[in-house]
């Protein structure tokens, strides 16, 4: 039964390699994009943290900056 599933009448090598290539590609792209996102989030937290009081007040007045910080905090929980 298992041998049949693996060999697929001699087409197993082709079928399994096509599916494996697809799934590995999915995993790789997901990881690359995830790492890029994490890098930008880290950069944002660092830059936000190094602002002086006046600049920090201006940055906080922008709703999207608040949303980004909330998003980062939520993803850490």
């Amino acid at each position, binding site marked *: 039964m298992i041998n049949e599933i693996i060999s*697929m009448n001699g*087409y197993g090598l082709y079928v399994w390699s096509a599916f494996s*290539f697809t799934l590995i590609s999915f995993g790789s792209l997901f990881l690359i*994009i995830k790492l890029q996102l994490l890098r930008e989030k880290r950069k*944002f937290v660092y830059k*936000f943290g190094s602002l002086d009081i006046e600049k920090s007040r201006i940055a906080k007045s*922008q*709703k999207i900056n608040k949303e980004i910080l909330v998003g980062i905090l939520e993803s850490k929980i």
Partner: protein
Amino acid sequence: MLKSFEPNKIFAITSRAPKYVLFLFIIVLSIGLTEALFLSPEDYKQSHSVRIMYVHVPSAWISLGIFSLIAFLSLVSFIFKNKNFSLISKSLAPSGFLFNIIALVTGAIWGKPTWGTWWAWDARITSMLILALFYSMYLLSWKIFRNEKQATKITSIIAILGVINVPIIKFSVDWWSTLHQTSSVKILSTTSIHISMLIPLAIMTAAFTLFSILIFLMKYNTELIKIKNKGLDRL
């Protein structure tokens, strides 16, 4: 109504959506893989090699769909100078390119047992390769041109020029004599593929669509935070 298009409101949705999309994607993909690899019947001519169709065909469809969408958004962004549309186009490109590559590679793998060759310069395969070149040029242009206005302009031109290739890919099997068969799945007329194969194909297409949405959302969030990082530098 227009307030729902404010960047903070868009970000509130796009930053929370990926986890739900990922969850749904894993479920749909699991069902799709079970159907495609174990439950669907083998073909009377191609035997089990037909199963490659369940990854090859959805990938080709989605790569074509994404490029058409990129071209449309680029045109709109080019005419109305809307930054958000070019940001959406930029975020769509990575998954579109990946699906293009998957379609080419799985097509080559399927070609060997079916046609006896990994590659042939037939109209469908060649036009798909040209699409991959347009995707590469599009993605590289975003990397090469640091000036945002210049990058938007050049990528828009690439996308608009590249979309001419989309109908060529679609109708290549009708216009020229190629190794590829004509379409089996049709929207406007009767589909010739059996329901037992159409169901796994539909499920795998849904799973692949969810994956492209997931990558789009994550990339869009990355680009939005990148813009805000530049904004913090300018404060």
